[in-house]
Each structure stands twice: as structure tokens, then as C-alpha cells.
């Protein structure tokens, strides 16, 4: 009974749902059977219901195009990505380990810099780091934790191995879409949720609130927490608003806040100034405080760094945490995990060549046509060279860029990302996916159950970013009886 998956081409990649075109992996069996039991009309009915739900719920993202901000409907595919609980538990462990090491590392860099002293990290790497913030030297945030919210992107290669592609420690976004995707899917496939154990994701906001609350200055009994947004024109504004609402926190812009002569942070309310204890900021370091960083910033708050250094307010993620969000630093993560924790990494990196080292750089320059080259500090898939899809001219340009600033580039083999069946018009075709789980770290650690799965919609594409035509999938961690 080949049904909808007749002719489905999952080779040469690892498909998350099907081990071969007619055999679902065990955790995906109920979904597979349900889809097979539906005719094309029923599937397009569900697909339309899904679109209508997204419209009614007002789930949008903003793209900046031709000088205008446009709200687009959030793209969610009908077919979820399924992970078996036992496997997820291993990933969970690996993420906790990684974020613990990342925080040790950041704390060390702004403290005694033991990793540099002990020769684990080359000193010139630190000197050339754009996200190392001198004004953060000597500060000790609560629990020695700097990155309180971390979104690490995971991919699965052709051999089925889950690897970390990058760590996002500045202002990782997407968690609101993870939560909204689940709300939509429960409306569309209620029977699947009733008949198997799909683990819930909806405690994220209370965990986030708990994490942020744990950062408040010690003498504060019930902390005032705010979400600091650059404003309505930011592409992630939907999420800022969503998280503030779900936590019952104030959503503030820089102009709502001020630091008084007592080095405490206040917000302007209709009843007068009110003290703020914790800032969940969704603006980059550069814009946080015009007294310390970019003087022309109108998004931040003059004096915020003063208040933070005095311990009068907590900032999440802490200023300077982005130093570990550097793709060159990423390449050192396996060594850093061993150095700080004395453990082997439980989650693998993608093999990475560091152009900083002449021998690795030569290798990259010789193999440009088969590698993905990334600058250290870009996000959203910008500024990359995808070797197999590049022209001679593009490779020549990149070779020049790499030679002029080798420290700023890394290269990785082109990965054969895993696929998930995705509704394309009225048939299911394999499309490449990644996964962004979110890790919270305050007094305790918490990992989302699964995360946001992003999918590259054009056939063969590996670009999953929603700003560049990517879509999303709900992620189901399914307890098929094999987990503990």
C-alpha cells in the first residue's frame, strides 16, 4: 500500500519519518497510518484548516522588503517532525552539557581567562573577537551564568548523527513559533494527540519566568521583569510581545526605561517611575546603552550598563554573552567542553576547518567548491558561500575575503541534512530540516521538549531561515514505549 508516499525519494539522506518509502520509524507509525488513511481531499481540508487557524490566531512574522515591513503569515507545514523520546533524552543531556560549558567559558573570558592562559584558546582569537565586550570584564552575574537563553541549531547528517551546527547566544528567536505551532497542530490533528503520548511543550513560558526571576538582585522578593524590544518594526516583535504576554511581564522599549542617579533602572508608568529588577533584552549589545556602546543608539537605555555592573539589575542574556556566539569559537567547543567539564562532548560538532590556522586555511581554499564557508559573526544565513552551488566568480571573491581576514572564517563540509515529508501542493516530498531547541539556564537548567523545526521549502534547498523562504514544522517528541 504505497499511498501518499509512492515514489517518495529519501535517498541519499536520512529521513526523519520513513526508514524506506513504505516503512515508518516506530515513533512515526501513528502519524503515518493516519495520513495513509486519508484521501487527498481530506489532506487538503486539513491543510486549509491549518492556514485558517494561523490567520485567525494572527501568527505572523515580519520581513523587511523594498523599504517596507510586511507581515506575512507564519509558514507551518502539515507534517510534524518526530523524535523518539529515548533519543531526545540523549540530545537533552548533550545540550545541558554544552550550555554549562559555554557559560563556564564566557565567565572565564570576562574573568581570569584561564582557557587562554592554558593554551586552549589562541589569544589572537579573543583579540579579534567582535563580540568580546571589554566593559564586561570583572562582572560576576548570578550563578556565573551569562547565557540564560540559548538556541542551538541541530542537524542530522546522512549517517543519522545529530550534530550542533551553531550556538545562538545573543538574542535567539523562534520559541514563540514553537509554542504556536503546537497550538495549531492540536486544532488540526486532535485524534493524534488523543491516541499517543506526544510530550507537551507549553511549560516554556513559566520556565522562562522562573529562570528570569532567579536572576533578580538578592534582596528582591517579587521581582519586576520586563522584556526589552527594539519595537514593532523588529522581525521578531511578534515573539517579544507573545513572551511578555505569556509571562505577564511588561513589554518595554528603551524609551520606557531610565537609570536614575541611584544607578537603579526604572520604567515610566502612568503612576510614576517603577523599579525594574530583570531585563530580558531582545536587542543586541551594540544598542543596549549609548553611554558604553553605540552612542547613536535610541533603542537602549543610557546608564543600563552602570546599573548592571552595580548589581541593581539583571540582564538576560548578559551583555557580552555573544562572545561565544562566534563561529570560530564554535569550532573550539569540543576542546572547551573537555577543558571546563572534564567530559567528552555528548553532542558532536559539524567538522570545522578554522582558517585561522594556515594548514586548515589552505585546505579550505583548495576545496571551496565542496564546502560551506561562513563568516564568524553573521546570522540568518547571510554572508555564506555554499560551495557546490557557487560560481567561479563567487569562489574567487570568497578566496580573497578569506585571505584578507582568515580569523573571521570557518568552513564545513556541505551537509546532507535529514529530510521530513512535507506537503508540496497535494503530495508529500522530502524537504531538509534543522532543529532549534531552547535551553534556559538560571538557578536551574531547562530544555524545551523538542524545539522549533525549520524546513527548507524549495526542492534540494538547505536554507531554512524564514526570512529566506523557509518554513516550519511542529516537533513531536513521542514516547513510543522505548523511553524511560
Amino acid at each position, binding site marked *: 500500500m504505497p499511498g501518499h508516499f509512492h515514489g517518495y525519494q529519501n535517498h541519499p539522506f536520512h529521513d526523519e519519518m520513513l526508514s524506506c518509502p513504505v516503512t515508518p520509524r516506530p515513533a512515526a507509525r501513528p502519524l503515518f497510518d493516519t495520513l495513509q488513511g486519508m484521501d487527498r481531499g481530506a489532506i487538503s481540508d486539513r491543510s486549509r484548516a491549518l492556514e485558517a487557524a494561523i490567520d485567525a490566531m494572527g501568527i505572523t512574522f515580519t520581513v523587511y522588503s523594498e523599504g517596507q515591513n510586511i507581515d506575512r503569515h507564519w509558514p507551518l507545514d502539515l507534517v510534524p517532525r518526530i523524535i523518539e523520546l529515548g533519543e531526545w533524552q540523549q540530545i537533552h543531556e548533550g545540550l545541558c552539557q554544552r550550555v554549562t560549558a559555554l557559560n563556564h567559558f564566557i565567565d572565564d573570558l570576562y574573568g581570569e581567562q584561564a582557557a587562554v592562559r592554558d593554551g586552549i584558546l589562541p589569544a589572537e582569537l579573543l583579540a579579534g573577537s567582535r563580540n568580546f565586550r571589554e566593559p564586561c570584564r570583572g562582572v560576576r552575574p548570578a550563578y556565573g551564568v551569562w547565557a540564560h537563553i540559548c538556541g542551538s541549531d541541530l542537524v542530522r547528517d546522512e549517517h543519522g548523527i545529530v550534530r550542533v551546527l551553531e550556538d545562538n547566544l545573543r538574542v535567539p528567536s523562534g520559541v514563540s513559533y514553537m509554542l504556536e505551532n503546537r497550538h495549531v497542530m492540536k486544532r488540526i490533528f486532535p485524534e493524534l494527540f488523543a491516541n499517543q503520548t506526544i510530550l507537551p511543550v507549553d511549560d516554556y513560558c513559566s520556565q522562562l519566568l522562573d529562570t528570569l526571576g532567579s536572576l533578580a538582585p538578592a534582596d528582591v522578593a517579587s521581582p519586576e521583569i520586563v522584556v526589552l524590544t527594539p519595537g514593532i518594526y523588529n522581525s521578531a516583535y511578534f515573539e517579544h*510581545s507573545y513572551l511578555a504576554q505569556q509571562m505577564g511581564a*511588561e*513589554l518595554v522599549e528603551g524609551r520606557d526605561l531610565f537609570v536614575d542617579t541611584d544607578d537603579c533602572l526604572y520604567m515610566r508608568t502612568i*503612576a*510614576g517611575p517603577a523599579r525594574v529588577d530583570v531585563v530580558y533584552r531582545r536587542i543586541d549589545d551594540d544598542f543596549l546603552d549609548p553611554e558604553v556602546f553605540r552612542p547613536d543608539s535610541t533603542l537602549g537605555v543610557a546608564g543600563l550598563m552602570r546599573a548592571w555592573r552595580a548589581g541593581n539589575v539583571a540582564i538576560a542574556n548578559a551583555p557580552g554573552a555573544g562572545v561565544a556566539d562566534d563561529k570560530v569559537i564554535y569550532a573550539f567547543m569540543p576542546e572547551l567542553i573537555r577543558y571546563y567539564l572534564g567530559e567528552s562532548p555528548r553532542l558532536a560538532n559539524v567538522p570545522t576547518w578554522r582558517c585561522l590556522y594556515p594548514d586548515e586555511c589552505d585546505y579550505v581554499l583548495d576545496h571551496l567548491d565542496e564546502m560551506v564557508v561562513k563568516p564568524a559573526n553573521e546570522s540568518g544565513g547571510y554572508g555564506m558561500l555554499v560551495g557546490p552551488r557557487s560560481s567561479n566568480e563567487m569562489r574567487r571573491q570568497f578566496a580573497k575575503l578569506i585571505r584578507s581576514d582568515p580569523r573571521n572564517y570557518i568552513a564545513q563540509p556541505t551537509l546532507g541534512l535529514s529530510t521530513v515529508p512535507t506537503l508540496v501542493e497535494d503530495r508529500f516530498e522530502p524537504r531538509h530540516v534543522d532543529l532549534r531547541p531552547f535551553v534556559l539556564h538560571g538557578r536551574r537548567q531547562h530544555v524545551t521538549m523538542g524545539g522549533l523545526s525549520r524546513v527548507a521549502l524549495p526542492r534540494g534547498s538547505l536554507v531554512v531561515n524564514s526570512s529566506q523562504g523557509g518554513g516550519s514544522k511542529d516537533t513531536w517528541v513521542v514516547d513510543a514505549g522505548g523511553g524511560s
Partner: protein
Amino acid sequence: MMLSRVGEQLYWMSRYLERMDNTARLIKATTQQMLDARHPADWRAPVDILGAGTLFDGRELAAHESTVMAFLIDDAHQPGSIRACVRAARENARTVRELLPTDVWEGINELHGVMRDDFGTNTRRRRRLDFLRHLIATNQRINGIIEGTLSHGPPYHFILLARLLERADMTSRILDKHTTGEVDNGGSPDGWMNTLHALDGYLMYRQSLGVGLDPRSVVRFLMLDPAFPRSVRFCLRHMGDALLALPRSAPVLAEVQRLDRRHVEAEPHRLALGALHDYIDQLQTELADIHGLIARHYFPEPLTC
């Protein structure tokens, strides 16, 4: 406690929704009135009532049904058009949606969807009435959700304050159409009845007064009735209640109470039409002053850059 900026955005969201609602009512009543008119109808009146006459003339538009309707409903560059009001309400709501019941945002989104899908088709009469009814009903649903599920804290009271201020202004504008003389012969019973219809006050007027439709009674009803929710008096009274529930409200409250007293003492229903027109002008100026006071007292300083 509520942010000053949030107060400002809720205030504008609420004013624009109410303005959209009242404009829709006015267009609906005008359209229905025109169907009954014996003479070639004057479509210019609603443009003047809504204070958009100068802009309309500047565009050198003719006062035909289709141009006036396009101007009042669809014209994104006419700040009082229904399209512009819905957009402004939505832009303000977008930034404060985390404070509002989810259904309020969905309702405002629905208004936006209606405007998007019906672009340009509303100049035709048959579609227009259904369309306007849909807008008004959606806004009434939004108000109902706010009444039924938004806690009566500062956000609620800011929304209420703004809605009542806008409504007092719009009621006085709609009443003002009788005082300009030319419009529908000023004093015909049909005209006054239409005014009551525009404010959905016909039944309440009948129940309250039970008398014939004489202009003085209608003016008194719309200006001074203490119980009809769209009368100017009612709006001023309840603005006072909303302010009482807000922090630091004493100076604004004192001004509103002063205006309320003066309004009652002015006895607008005893004025000749010309004098009534001047009085309504003055009332609108005083309502604008109260807005200015609210803005200076509660809203953040305007951005200087």
C-alpha cells in the same frame, strides 16, 4: 503599573476603533437617507461632519456618491477614513496586544481582513450596507470582549476614557449637521430621525421621551440625556468614572467635571441653530483640550529625534 507608552497606545487604539465605528454608522445612515431622498442627494454632508472638507476640496473631488464613499471608506491617505482608522487601531493594538484578551486582537485582525478583502467594492450600495454592518458588529464584539474579559485595571480605564472622549466628539459632530442649515433642510423630521438612527438612538429616544420628533428634544437627548450611552453628557460623566479609577488623575478629572457642569448649564437644546453650531464648535475645542491634558499628564514625552 501600566507603562505611559502603553497607556498612550491603548488610548489611540480605542479612539480609532470608536471613530471607525461612528464613521461607519454615519455612512450607513446617510446611505439609507439618500435612498429616501426625493431630490438629487447631497453626498457632501458626511465629509463636512467628519471634518475632512478641506482635504476633500484640496483633492478637487466632486461630491458624488462614489467619490465620497471612496474618500470616507477606502482612502488610506485620508486620516479619518475607515481604512486609516482600522490601520491605526491595529498598529497601536499590535504593540500592546500582550495586555489584551486574545480575542480583542483577533477581532481587530478581522477588521483588517475585511478592509483588505473588500477594497474598492464598498462604493456600491448593496455591498456597502452589509460591509458597514459587519464592521460595526465586529467592533461591538470587541467592546463586548473588553467588557466581559478585560480586568477593570488601568488598561481598561484608558480604553474606556478614550472611547467616551471620541464618542462625545462624534455625537456632537453628527448633531452639528443640522446646524449648518443647508444639509437636508436643517429641520425636517426625516433629518432628525436620521440623526437618531446614525447614533442608533431612535428606539431609546422613543422610550425615553415618547413624544414627537421635535428638534429640541432630540438635541437635549443627544447632548444631555444621563442614561443614553452615546449622549455627550453620559460620555463626560463616565469619563469622570474612568479617571477616578486611574492613578494621579485629579487635574484631568477636575477639567472633565468642569466641562460637564458647563455643558449642563449651557442648555444647548434651548439654543437657536446658529448658536448651537457655535456651541458645538466650542465643545469640540474643549474636548480637544481635555485630550491635550491627558496627553501631557500621562503620555511619554514625544521622541525628540
